[in-house]
């Protein structure tokens, strides 16, 4: 088996997440490349939740709904997912909670009395996961030592009991399949949020400020947990308004600062965004999209904030928007966003979604670019310091408080070069132009980066156009179908020239988006491009490999 998927399902609060994570680590040790899709409701306990752990010898970045193994902790897990099992698939179920007659006749189904075992061992219910993992490992022929070491590394509480439960499962089950190890080095398994966190830290992050909001909270938790090791401050203040204003305060002192949120929280930050544009205070926003409008489906995915991000904030000013498609790109994009925010003194956006933030990827730091941290332009001290000195490219030298030679005034009103409020028409015009000119220079600089990515069959006359987390699924489907893939990694300033090159000679462009109105489509229209077909999904779920393949074949 070069590639297979396991679906593990149960109630929210059952520990499905952790169990899936442990299994992924066991497979990772065997040299498999992995991707984990997590599907859970906005509920702490109860409700249905599942993870799909997909393993392959090659790098993968998406899930499939064609499942080889189902690990069903309760009845819902069968009812909701039995259709997904492949012909030769195996269903492992909790026989204490699943009715036998609900199982498919034509599939191999193996029942284990998990509740009973837990009772017999007199342990908490959550430990039945360890037992189930033991069962699964035995069935697919994994060495006990592998399980043992992954458990020891990842479980801090009651490791002996957990191992005991696992062993019981391992001994109860029979080996049915032989999964062979692959001779390649295992790679770290991290989610998109963690990759962003690492990228920001690498780029010199000083402070991370956020108010919790799915799917951005993971980044907050990750950075808070590691704040001391990274040498950063992490603050969770009273609201998103405080978040963005605090961030701008930090920025004023010269400390690189990022904030994270999702749509609703971002709304509250738009006034601060406009201030960042006006006062030329660098800031990085990580906006994790979820299903909207409004509170929507908090724990599901979407790509419906692109146009909002491009146009948010009143007035006109320069900005940078990048939408990474996997963990390595996330690491790179976060560095780039921080660098460019500081180089151009503008707001920069890392636009993600629940799929990317919470999807778990293998992460190869060696294929992701490490950028050099951007340092501010030096002020020559020849003249008195002017925070908003007008220059050729619009970028003024930066100084930070306290500086005994410089008085540093920033201002939300229109202002002169020194930073004093003005209402004069001529200065207003000059300053508006200064602020917008920076974007032109940024656009030029972006030509030296691969701002539009191309994959797949480069000779194909048909291309899939996608952005953000859809990259992974598009890549694989394109490989299967022999298509080209075009992914604008940078969305603003739109890399029109690179996009033009990428689309040269194409007969057909099919745009894939997780929204209803076609937001990337709108963006490319501004540059005179058009698409021939669009495939959209807006029910909160990401495209799966099989689904997208089917839709593309139509």
């Amino acid at each position: 088996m070069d590639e297979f998927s396991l679906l593990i399902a149960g109630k929210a609060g059952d520990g499905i997440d952790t169990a899936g994570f442990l299994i992924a680590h066991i497979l990772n040790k065997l040299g498999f490349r992995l991707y984990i899709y997590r599907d859970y409701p906005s509920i702490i306990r109860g409700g249905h939740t599942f993870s799909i752990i997909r393993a392959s010898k090659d790098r993968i970045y998406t899930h499939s709904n064609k499942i080889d193994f189902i690990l069903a902790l309760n009845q819902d897990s069968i009812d909701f997912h039995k259709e997904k099992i492949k012909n030769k698939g195996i269903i492992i179920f909790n026989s204490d909670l699943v009715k036998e007659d609900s199982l498919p006749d034509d599939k191999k189904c193996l029942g284990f009395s998990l509740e009973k075992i837990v009772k017999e061992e007199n342990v908490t219910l959550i430990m039945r996961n360890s037992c189930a993992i033991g069962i699964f490992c035995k069935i697919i022929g994994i060495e006990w030592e592998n399980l043992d070491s992954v458990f020891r590394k990842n479980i801090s509480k009651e490791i002996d009991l957990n191992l005991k439960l696992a062993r019981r499962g391992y001994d109860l089950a029979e080996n049915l399949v032989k999964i062979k190890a692959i001779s390649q080095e295992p790679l770290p398994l991290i989610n998109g949020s963690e990759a962003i966190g690492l990228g920001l830290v690498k780029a010199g992050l000083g402070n991370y400020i956020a108010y919790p909001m799915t799917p951005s909270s993971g980044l907050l938790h990750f950075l808070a947990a590691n704040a001391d090791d990274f040498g950063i401050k992490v603050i969770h203040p009273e609201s998103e308004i405080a978040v963005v204003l605090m961030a701008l305060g930090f920025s004023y002192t010269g400390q690189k600062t990022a904030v994270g949120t999702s749509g609703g929280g971002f709304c509250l930050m738009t006034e601060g965004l406009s201030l960042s544009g006006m006062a030329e205070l660098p800031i990085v926003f990580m906006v994790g999209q979820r299903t909207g409008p409004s509170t929507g489906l908090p724990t599901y995915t979407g790509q419906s904030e692109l146009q909002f991000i491009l146009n948010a904030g009143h007035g006109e000013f320069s900005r940078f928007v990048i939408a990474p498609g996997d963990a390595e790109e996330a690491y790179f994009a976060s560095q780039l966003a921080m660098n460019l925010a500081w180089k151009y003194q503008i707001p920069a956006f890392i636009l993600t979604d629940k799929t990317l933030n919470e999807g778990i990827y293998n992460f190869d730091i060696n294929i992701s670019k490490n950028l050099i941290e951007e340092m501010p332009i030096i002020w020559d001290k020849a003249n008195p310091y002017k925070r908003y000195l007008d220059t050729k490219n619009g970028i003024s030298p930066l100084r930070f408080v306290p500086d005994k030679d410089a008085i540093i005034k920033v201002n939300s009103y229109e202002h002169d070069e020194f930073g004093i409020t003005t209402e004069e028409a001529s200065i207003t015009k000059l300053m508006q132009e200064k602020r917008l000119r920076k974007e032109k220079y940024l656009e030029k600089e972006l030509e030296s980066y691969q701002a539009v990515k191309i994959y797949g069959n480069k000779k194909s006359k048909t291309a899939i156009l996608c952005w953000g987390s859809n990259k992974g699924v598009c890549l694989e489907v394109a490989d299967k179908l022999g298509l080209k893939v075009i992914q604008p990694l940078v969305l603003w300033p739109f890399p029109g020239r690179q996009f033009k090159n990428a689309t040269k000679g194409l007969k057909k462009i099919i745009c894939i988006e997780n929204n209803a109105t076609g937001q990337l489509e709108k963006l490319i229209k501004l540059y005179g491009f058009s698409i021939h077909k669009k495939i959209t999904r807006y029910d909160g779920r990401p495209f799966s490999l099989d689904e997208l393949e089917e839709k593309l074949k139509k």
Partner: protein
Amino acid sequence: MTQINLGTYAQNTWCPGCGNFAILNAIKSVFLELNQEGLPLENIVLVSGIGCHGKIVDYINLNSFYSLHGRAIPVAQAIKIANPNLKVICFSGDGDSYGEGLEHLIFAAKRNIDITCIIHNNRVYGLTTGQYTPTSPLGFKGRSTPFGTKELPFNPLELMISSGASFLARGTSHGLLLLKKIFKEAILHKGFSLVDILQVCVTYFNTYEYYEKRVYELKDYNPEDPSQALNKIKEWDYNQDCPIAIGTIYKKESPSFEESFLKPDQNPDRNQAIKKILEENI
């Protein structure tokens, strides 16, 4: 006295007679005094909201951050946390920080962050031409309430003491000496300090005579006695007619938030930390 000129070339556009002039003069002389006592001027950062009050940062030749309406306080907090050696002074209005951005004031007080908030409390929105604010008296006829407000003001000092503020004072824009004294005390106080200034707005709510008749300076008074302070704070509810105490009303020692971030090892090896995380996740 020193020869340093703290003024700027910005044209002053406050109405003649506006109470903001007194605040400007008092704070400038306090800065000069502090400077003479050893505080480098570049260590001062001014932050302001939007309103007539906010213009003050244009008139003082020191570091400043002219923020949004209602949003001076979070900026000031961040600057202080970023560098606890800075003296951060926030100028805000009653519309600004008792209204639009009240929550930030409460949370800054709760955290006891060592910033000084000077509230130009003219009990009216000056810059937007005269609407009621949270401290306007009941029945105030402003442009959004031409038939009089239907709600009582709140008492900002009472709210602040309930929120955890560790220094509270009140002044008027017509007592320069006292203003200087309390500004200096507030700035030197370690922890969150707020000075509520009954600033006269000659154009939209001329309370000059009203205050003139009612204010009295606190004498023989111990601001460190919390229950006495609470009584003093409650003496005047910003609505009824009664004597109005001015001076330092409340003072308390307590740890401030920004200190919690100071750690001996401020510069760990980031590449190493990243590597460690990645290894843990294999």
